[in-house]
């Protein structure tokens, strides 16, 4: 379960710390008390930053670091595909052997495949990804609302 990639991200997290953003969310995992505050910044539909601060287990913290590494600079549609693929992998109960196509999409996040065998830990791995999805909906939903207000 504890792949070196996961431990590396845990010990040396990418992009940690809160910076300017379009929306902020706070998510918790009540079973173990993992917490994350996450902000997204968009430039149109390109993700210009995902910043975060949190506390929790190595899985939840490493997962947030991997998310930052993978998603910053991506187009929203590509990021959504990565998020959905990661979700599919994490919900596979260890039955999914990531193929080349999946590895290409997920890069370092493939290292979490082993976590999907541990039901108690899947939520840890998904915490930041669910927070990102929520923050994105708020940021872009808010932007759409702003655009509507301006055009009205």
């Amino acid at each position, binding site marked *: 379960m504890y792949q070196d990639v996961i431990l590396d991200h845990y010990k040396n997290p990418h992009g940690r710390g809160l910076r300017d953003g379009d929306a902020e969310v706070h998510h918790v995992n009540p079973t*173990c008390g993992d917490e994350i505050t996450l902000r997204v910044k968009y430039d149109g539909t390109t993700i210009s930053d995902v910043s975060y601060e949190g*506390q929790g*287990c190595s899985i939840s913290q490493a997962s947030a670091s991997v998310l930052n590494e993978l998603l910053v600079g991506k187009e929203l549609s590509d990021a959504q595909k990565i998020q959905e693929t990661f979700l599919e992998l994490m919900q596979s109960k260890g039955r999914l052997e990531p193929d080349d196509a999946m590895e290409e999409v997920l890069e370092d996040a493939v290292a979490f495949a082993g976590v999907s065998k541990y039901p108690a*830990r899947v939520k840890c791995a998904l915490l930041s990804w669910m927070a990102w999805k929520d923050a994105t909906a708020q940021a872009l939903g808010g932007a759409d609302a702003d655009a509507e207000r301006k055009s009205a």
Partner: protein
Amino acid sequence: MTQLPGLLDTEAIRKDFPILDRVLHDGKKLVYLDNAATSQTPRQVIDVLDEYYEQHNANVHRGVHVLAEEATALYEGARDKVAAFVNAPSRDEVIFTKNASESLNLVANMLGWADEPYRVDHETEIVITEMEHHSNIVPWQLLSQRTGAKLKWFGLTDDGRLDLSNIDEVITEKTKIVSFVLVSNILGTHNPVEAIVRRAQEVGALVLIDASQAAPHMPLDVQALQADFVAFTGHKMCGPTGIGVLWGRQELLEDLPPFLGGGEMIETVSMHSSTYAPAPHKFEAGTPPIAQAVGLGAAIDYLSSIGMDKILAHENALTEYAVKRLTEVPDLRIIGPATAEDRGAAISFTLGDIHPHDVGQVLDEQGIAVRVGHHCARPVCLRYGIPATTRASFYLYSTPAEIDALVEGLEHVRNFFG
């Protein structure tokens, strides 16, 4: 092997628990240190459960056939065993529930619906403590929200004890009920009953004691405790899940109203109204957990055959050893009393910055089962500024060698994440 004075013959005892022979993860021997969550089940209890289902299974009371009479005798026999186990003045003071949570909720609901002088309403106060399990917090929050009663609590000292310095302000003439844990499931603290009961009696408040972490581990005497109600659960004391106990003083059980209505709890029923059976049946609506009660009776026989005083001495010796060994682990901070004095055999700790879930997972890879998280006592974690703890908890079959394995395992955890 480490020899400590007061230890039980664990070699013999462990033969009674088939699950302790399990081998996990490519040959790692199970080291089961999660006894505060649930205890393992001895062969003697498993056999009684098998025999019940193979020979005696029927619904209890009123049946006129052989099986119904046997099942009733076994179920009511279990009540006798529980009554003797806690030194209850009467067997009719023992109510079977499904767990300690239900027992605690039952009292909260009795008081919410009660007439004077027991009634909890907006002019009265409820007292609990900051170290309660959620099952002794949430029912009182619900009662407080529904009735307008004020919920108050005792805080904690830095070393994991109840802060009773303001006892006269916390328990007042307005207090109707004081509900507190005898031994904390997260801190291990063994609380001073006498001081709290004395103050409660001064103001005429009822006392409910959550003995979930006490009944399995030490002699329990409800008369010596001088409480009005005592709650505990079967599965933490070598019994099956699905069976709990509420002991209550007989005159209170006579006066207080039922909570759940249904079969078994009535005397007569018409379409307009009903009258109720005497306690304990008044509080046991519907088909009870029969096999589970019988299993709890067998667990009590098992524990009594070893002796609760001997089990207490065994655990005291283990706890003292565990505190000493754990204190040797660098960066380890015990959350709760730092000595073995007045504490039960559950020890919570943090290990540097390593999250308890990571500690628990890497220990599991070595076959060591501990519990991680807030242990259904989140206010305690908030009080000490930590997200969660790792908890090791011992029982009559635990050994010093298992504590050594835990300490070695923790060294491995430190190296792994270091």
